[in-house]
């Protein structure tokens, strides 16, 4: 009799232990979850919510206005302008960035001497801050002290006001941005290339395929998903680029380089138009989602 009770007690203990054990993973995840939900999810959802209310410091309350903020802002010349600036900026950065990262990845894939050092070097811009990148490029393209202009003068050419003329300024922020974001997409493409089977190239070479054929018929189709991912990364980083642009041109000259992220900052912190800033934030998030869905469709692996 006493023996059965002992067993029962043990079974009870075991059951309780099992119940506690079930909750263990939740406890482990809780701290991380609190941070991510409390800060990131909360502010994203709160920001999207803000875009549906009129938040005006001069008004006592904040009435719900539905999509009115969106329509108002879409009708504003400055919004349209900065939307266009963003498209040019993103288009330029993704184009140049993809070209460079593909070339770099090919070089890094093939090199055997100092391969590690080259790969390490390729990553260096990823460690430099956006502000520092901006300062270095502002210096490089400055009218008087910039290397590029001093070089032009040495060649007997005229100085160019890189940061004083709209299209040049756009080119400079695209270059600086590309310098800043290319390392990561290079790594993505390099990873894709290293996953390929080298025998494939040998067979193709034996069959008499040229280098270009191998590149366009084998390498590119096989790493298509990786190209898609690196384009997503380049687009994301550019659409949301703030660190490089503000210290480099501050949106100038005039508003020639006022991309969406910068415009959003201005709306919120210079003009205190918080709900309009939140509208731009929502637009930026939507653009990110749309572009990534688009790329994922286009570059879906067909293999």
């Amino acid at each position, binding site marked *: 009799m006493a023996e059965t009770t002992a067993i029962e007690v043990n079974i009870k203990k075991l059951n309780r232990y099992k119940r506690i054990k*079930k909750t*263990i*993973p939740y*406890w482990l995840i809780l*701290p*991380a*979850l609190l941070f*991510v939900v409390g*800060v*990131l*999810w*909360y*502010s*994203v959802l*709160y920001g999207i919510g803000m875009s549906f209310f009129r938040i005006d410091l001069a008004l006592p309350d904040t009435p719900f206005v539905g999509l009115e903020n969106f329509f108002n802002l879409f009708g504003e010349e400055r919004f349209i302008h900065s939307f266009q600036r963003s498209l040019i900026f993103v288009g330029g950065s993704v184009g140049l960035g993809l070209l*460079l990262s593909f*070339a*770099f990845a*090919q*070089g*890094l894939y*093939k*090199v055997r001497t100092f391969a*590690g050092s*080259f790969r390490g070097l390729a990553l260096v*811009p990823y*460690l*430099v*801050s*956006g*502000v*520092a*990148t901006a300062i*270095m490029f502002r*210096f490089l393209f400055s009218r008087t*002290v910039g290397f590029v202009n001093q070089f032009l*003068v*040495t060649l007997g050419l005229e100085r160019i006001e890189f940061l004083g003329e709209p299209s040049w300024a756009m080119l400079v922020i695209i270059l600086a941005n590309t310098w800043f974001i290319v390392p*990561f997409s290079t*790594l*993505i493409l390099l*990873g*894709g290339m290293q996953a390929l089977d080298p025998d494939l190239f040998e067979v193709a070479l034996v069959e008499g395929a040229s*280098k270009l054929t191998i590149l366009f018929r084998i390498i590119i189709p096989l790493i298509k998903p990786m190209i898609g991912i690196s384009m997503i990364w380049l687009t*994301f980083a550019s659409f*949301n*680029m703030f*660190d490089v642009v*503000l*210290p480099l041109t501050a949106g100038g000259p005039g508003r020639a380089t006022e991309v969406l*992220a910068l415009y*959003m*900052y201005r709306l*919120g*912190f210079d003009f205190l138009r*918080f709900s309009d800033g*939140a509208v731009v*934030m929502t637009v930026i*998030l939507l653009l*990110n989602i749309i572009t990534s869905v688009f790329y994922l469709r286009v570059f879906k692996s067909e293999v």
Partner: protein
Amino acid sequence: MKRGRDRLYWIPLVILVVWTIFPLLWGVSSSFKTYADIYRVPPSIIPPDPEIRAYQVVLTSRGFSTYVFNSTFLALTSSFIAVACSILAAYGFARFKFRLSTVLFLLILIPRIIPRASLIIPLFQMWATVGLLDSYAALIVSYTATAIPFNTMVLTGFFRGVPPALEDAASIDGASIWQRIRYIMIPMSIPAIITVSVMSLREAWNEFPFVLALTTSTRMRTLPYQLFMLRDAMGIEDWPVVLAFTALTIAPILGFYIIFQKRVTSGLVSGAIK
């Protein structure tokens, strides 16, 4: 096969080296030039009359030690908390089967793609509501939160690859969850932990939009913020000083990277592909 004959791949590599190094090299070399030599044409990469005046100016400038302290303190605390939370979460995801695991995993991972700069307006509102604008707490919590998604992803992947046999043995011997993490999982995962630590440190050390939006007083500034402000503070720019400041903000993270390069690169490659 005949890789040796194909030397064309050196072209992109040369472009890579010039493209990557030149802006840095030009900046660092100019930080050692005299104020007048900065304007000299034709330009020379090697300073004709090198001096360390700019570095002396920066190092003795008012508030510089505060900015160094702020940057270091924020980077270390937020990275430590982020890595600690991520280790626990990753262990939960890698070693337990539970009902909500996929949902929770996505809940933590998806914000990785939320751009930091886009959050500044709601974040500002949030920290203003709780009265913590212009405080270390607001910055540390915000930095920690942005670092967790990437860390958790990388660590979960790595933990799943660690064979569970050792832990099974330990748990038969009565080791608690905590002991299994502390004495088995962490020592087995040092490379991945170094990777996510360096990534978190880099992220916090270089952070700009949050510190710009969430702080107002000079004593709260970090190095990137002060670097940004240097432009306005001086009227005519003393470029060697600005560049010396830039070099000093880049140097520590670059030093870290050179020490842990192999681990960081391989960790990043795996992180980039997932």
